[in-house]
């Protein structure tokens, strides 16, 4: 009886192997999809030439231009924002103890969308360009406001479905208000707004990438650092408090982080649905555990992978026309949610 047996007794070694395999697999797939994203498109760039463009200092020519100024920033945006969405979803699910909570369903993305649309119309009317930091701040404010509404409502309804209904309604209200605004906006604004409000990674600049990296990476690191209280929160707020979680401080951190992550996505890519619900769910099934210490990194990678694949589909299926990426994520994400609910129901009857 040594430490070895004890460790094995708790199934930790098998688990560690599984975790390593899943994380490595996800990382590999992210890389492979990234290469596919860079090479594929209206101009096909051969993989060998891609190597030369990225690492060999080949900076001239159309292909280099396409990779460096269009595809690479777009790729990084899809990866970062996908990871951000998955983490925002994971945080909201843990916080509300509800497996289908997510930034889109709870109306947080729509709140951000309304705030961004308002800013675009009001500010773009005066200045030629809207600074990305301005849109991000607006999105953050909108997210927090929508989150506040959901929180107030969640205090009054204890049921899991009540929370979701409230979130969906808040989403409808914000979308309706956005539609009113669009009606009153002048033509050039509408063109801007419409493509953005459908959800898309296109047109990402390097400045945008810098801003989103500066926000998403530290916020994701913070989420990872919160793994321990997140684990305790899975047992409910009551138990979390009795093992030593400072509930008030943790709640605040969670609201700020999930609003920041979801708001950042909405500011740059518009509202994107279902990533926040589908990715954490699949990540937990793959890892066969819901321990945040491993689920957080897997979610980030999974979210990045999911958005890269969906973006590739969005821009290649009907090329040269682009489909909104939100339509693609919904197409793949919504069935996961249905499968999840059906599976849950079946298990309940089996017992």
């Amino acid at each position: 009886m040594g430490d070895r047996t004890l460790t094995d007794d708790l199934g930790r070694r098998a688990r560690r192997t599984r975790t390593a395999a899943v994380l490595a697999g996800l990382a590999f797939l992210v890389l492979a999809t990234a290469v596919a994203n860079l090479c594929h498109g209206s101009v096909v760039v051969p993989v060998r030439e891609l190597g030369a463009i990225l690492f060999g200092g080949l900076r001239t020519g159309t292909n280099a231009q396409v990779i460096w100024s269009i595809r690479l920033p777009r790729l990084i945006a899809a990866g970062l924002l996908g990871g951000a969405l998955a983490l925002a979803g994971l945080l909201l699910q843990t916080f509300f103890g509800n497996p289908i909570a997510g930034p889109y369903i709870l109306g947080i993305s729509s709140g951000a969308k309304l705030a961004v649309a308002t800013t675009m119309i009001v500010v773009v009317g005066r200045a030629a360009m809207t600074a990305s930091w301005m849109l991000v701040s607006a999105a953050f404010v909108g997210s927090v406001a929508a989150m506040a509404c959901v929180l107030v409502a969640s205090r009054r309804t204890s049921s899991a479905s009540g929370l979701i209904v409230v979130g969906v309604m808040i989403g409808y209200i914000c979308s309706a208000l956005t539609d009113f605004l669009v009606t009153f906006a002048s033509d050039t604004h509408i063109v801007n707004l419409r493509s953005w409000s459908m959800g898309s990674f296109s047109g990402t600049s390097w400045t945008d990438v810098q801003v989103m990296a500066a926000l998403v990476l530290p916020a994701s690191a913070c989420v990872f650092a919160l793994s321990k209280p997140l684990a305790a929160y899975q047992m409910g707020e009551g138990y979390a408090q009795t093992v030593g979680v400072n509930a008030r401080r943790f709640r605040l951190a969670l609201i700020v982080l999930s609003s920041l992550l979801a708001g950042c996505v909405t500011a740059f890519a518009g509202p994107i649905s279902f990533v926040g619900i589908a990715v954490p769910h699949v990540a937990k099934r793959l890892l066969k555990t819901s321990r945040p210490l491993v689920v957080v990194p897997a979610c980030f990678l999974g979210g990045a992978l999911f958005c890269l694949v969906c973006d590739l589909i969005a821009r290649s299926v009907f090329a040269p026309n682009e489909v909104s990426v939100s339509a693609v994520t919904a197409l793949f994400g919504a069935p996961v949610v249905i499968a999840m609910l059906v599976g849950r129901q079946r298990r309940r009857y089996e017992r």
Partner: protein
Amino acid sequence: MSDRMEDSAILRAQGLAVGYDGAPLVSGIDLAVAAHGVVTLVGPNGAGKSTLLKTVAGLLAPVGGAVWLSGRPLEQLDPHERALELSVMLTDRLRTELLTCADVVEMGRYPHTGRMGVPTSTDLAKVREAMQTTRVWDLRDKDFMQLSDGQRQRVMLARAICQEPRLLVLDEPTSYLDVHYQIELLAVLRELVETRGVGVLMSLHELPLVWKVSDWVVCMKDGVITAQGTPQEMCAPEVIDELFDLEPGTFDPLTGMIDLRK
């Protein structure tokens, strides 16, 4: 009041009032739990037993009066310090997702693990010891949601034990257990009290068990403590008939035997 009272009791309440949103449900509570002592709350449904236990656990703010934990006022302890002093088992049904029983029990080590919550081999040994104590070691790799209510309750008790508190706060710890495990659970509690010197504050409905396991019994009804004393004093039929509004002679508190002849 002085910050620190010289006091042998782990938990002491004086004139404590408990309730929700500032409205007292039970007031004038005076009680003490000593190390090596089991204090049991009995009384009809809705008497405020759970509310009192939640207040002591720090989940509800006291409405009035004072509580000391190891001589320090409860509200001065931060959540971490409180977690080192007491652990809790509630009646709330826990819904977990893809967590094994060992994972759930391991959550009890929270106040002892480091920044990222990674358990050391000492932590794992404590998890194992607690699970063996409540006879759930064989269930360690099972999904918590697949257990029966009784098994879950034993897992949750293991979780409370491996937190290694000075005081265990248990809300109806035997409610889903069959007679076999009821007896075993109470034996485990007595063993913990005698060997590790922890104190126990709990609510319990099965009166015959109350007399066996408790060192002190507190009767609660209609927003007050109606009586408290040793089990020998509290098991008198008059006390119990009064507490539960029973016709004299219909219930024997010692055996739990019910007489329906009338």
